[in-house]
């Protein structure tokens, strides 16, 4: 990078574009991570199957579009209650039994769920790459020399709205307070008469509804295939750890940071090494500040 050329108009355009790119990409990552951080924060469960629910959301968008011609933004409204039900179902069938079990049992339960879901998709719908391309998927908005894709902007807007909504829910509603109390101290919550099982069920269902909706929203942006979840899930964990357990706003900020690392890293070091950058960031945060950049210190020891 020739320093003499650093601030010409082309460079400012480039920076602006990179900036826009970062924000929009961050929005998408936030959308995917917000459900994870909720589950992670309140239930203290690392859901290794998170990516698979995202993938199911993407397939929902694909099949609705292909078979019935339904636009993903319409399907979005259906997907939220639908995935809420899926969440309730998977909680009853799978998660309830291991809520009080050891960490390792929880890890393996969600890994088993992940394996099963991935392969259900593989057997049912084959490994072919599918696409959801409604009429608006190629609409480009141009503002002052930067270009962005409409679908990305919508995803970003919804990510922010969702984060704000969840944050408000957690902070100001009674249920939200109950959930936070249970997160802080399960036993004390039980003593206070809180039905912790119901709290967990609700948390799980909300988290799954979020990630399912996220899947529907990102389907027009990427390809749909059974292991699509994998490409996002590792990212989501980085975001969640960076942002701190259960911290909604932290998840949003963490997403922006990860997106920035990815975009800036790709630009300066080449795309080949960008994943190494955020994996190293991930391990570094885990080792030096496991509560995240914004979370409470020592939070990672809770529920151990």
């Amino acid at each position, binding site marked *: 990078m020739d320093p003499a050329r650093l601030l010409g108009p082309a460079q400012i355009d480039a920076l602006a574009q990179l900036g826009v790119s970062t924000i929009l990409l961050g929005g998408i990552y936030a959308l995917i991570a917000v459900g994870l951080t909720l589950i992670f924060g309140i239930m203290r469960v690392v859901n290794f199957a998170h990516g698979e629910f995202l993938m199911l959301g993407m397939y929902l968008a694909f099949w609705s579009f292909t078979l019935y011609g339904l636009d993903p933004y319409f399907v979005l409204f259906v997907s939220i209650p639908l995935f809420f039900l899926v969440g309730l179902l998977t909680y009853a069938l799978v998660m309830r039994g291991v809520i009080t079990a050891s960490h390792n049992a929880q890890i393996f339960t969600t890994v088993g769920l992940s394996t099963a879901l991935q392969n259900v998709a*593989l057997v049912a719908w084959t490994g072919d790459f599918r696409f959801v391309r409604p009429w608006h998927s190629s609409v480009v908005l141009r503002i002052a020399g930067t270009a962005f894709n409409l679908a990305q902007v919508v995803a970003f807007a919804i990510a922010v709205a969702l984060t704000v909504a969840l944050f408000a829910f957690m902070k100001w509603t009674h249920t939200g307070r109950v959930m936070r109390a249970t997160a802080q101290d399960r036993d004390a919550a039980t003593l206070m008469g809180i039905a912790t099982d119901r709290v967990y069920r609700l948390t799980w269902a909300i988290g799954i509804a979020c990630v399912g909706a996220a899947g529907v929203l990102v389907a027009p942006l990427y390809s749909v295939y059974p292991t699509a979840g994998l490409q996002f899930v590792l990212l989501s964990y980085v975001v969640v750890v960076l942002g701190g357990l259960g911290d909604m706003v932290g998840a949003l900020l963490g997403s922006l940071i990860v997106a920035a690392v990815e975009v800036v890293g790709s630009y300066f070091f080449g795309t080949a090494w960008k994943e190494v950058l955020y994996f190293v960031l991930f391990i570094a945060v885990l080792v030096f500040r496991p509560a995240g950049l914004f979370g409470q210190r020592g939070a990672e020891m809770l529920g151990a």
Partner: protein
Amino acid sequence: MRGVLARHWGALVLFGLTALTPLVVKDAFFLDSLVLILIWGALSAAWNLAGGYAGQVSLGHSAFFGIGAYSAALLATRWQQSPWLGMLLGVLVSVAAGAVIGYLSNRLRGPYFALSTIAFSQVLLIVASRWRGFTQGSEGIPVPFRPGFWTLGLGHVAWVYVALGLALVHYGVQVYFERSRVGYQLAGVREDEDAAEALGIASRKLRVFAVTLSAALTSVCGAFWAQYVGFVDPFYVFSVDLSIRFALNTIIGGVGTALGPFLGSILITSLETYLRATFAGVKTGFTGIYLIIYGCVLILVVRFVPEGLAGLAARLRAGVARSRERATDHAHA
């Protein structure tokens, strides 16, 4: 002596039958499947050292598998050295890597540790697939087959015995973990670390030891695998799927037991091979069914049968012993 035989009757039966099989069965495919069962079993046993006995669940053990595979392949192709030397080199590198992971296991708990191991294996994947000058990048390394023991260029029958030897070593190390002082201390650390520390057990060092040993053994298996299959593909040897597979075998077979990993491997590898053989070309989609089954079985095992297949055997033996006791009690009453 009688006690030893009784304790290890399962292993004696399984490994004994395996040793006898090449004398009876000449079918190369069956022998090949047997070799795979043994190698996957050994890999799962190596995982078990960290995940079962030390209680440190790693989902990134493919990192060490890949290190072993690459060490053997690189030494054989770039420097024309024997894969046994490659194995040694792989062990050295894995010990270093394992120490890093071990350090992480002291800093991080359960799921965080698992996540960091995934990240570690993926970093290695990226490095191996991009460093063209050294590892030939994404194209992987074809491992040359040169007949002879020193170059591990063997026939199917010989491979069965080599794999059996590998499996026996892994079984033995696990038994050592069960029976030795190190093992008891590790169990204490696993169950209640604070109490163990209070008793003066060096929990951190023990954990690092377990993880490092696990890494070294995994790497040894990786080197053998590279020579057996003959091609090292970075996206395969460092994959998360492989890591999960090692854990899957062990949990279903019985985590924390010496025979568990092998039982799990028998069940899973044979089912996979059988389904693939039967459905290939017919309704190929169905070959993926075995993984759906395993996912569900994993959930069920964790919930209802946490001791896995091997634990069931122990329960049976205990049940038999108890009923015998009751019978003698009644006789005396």
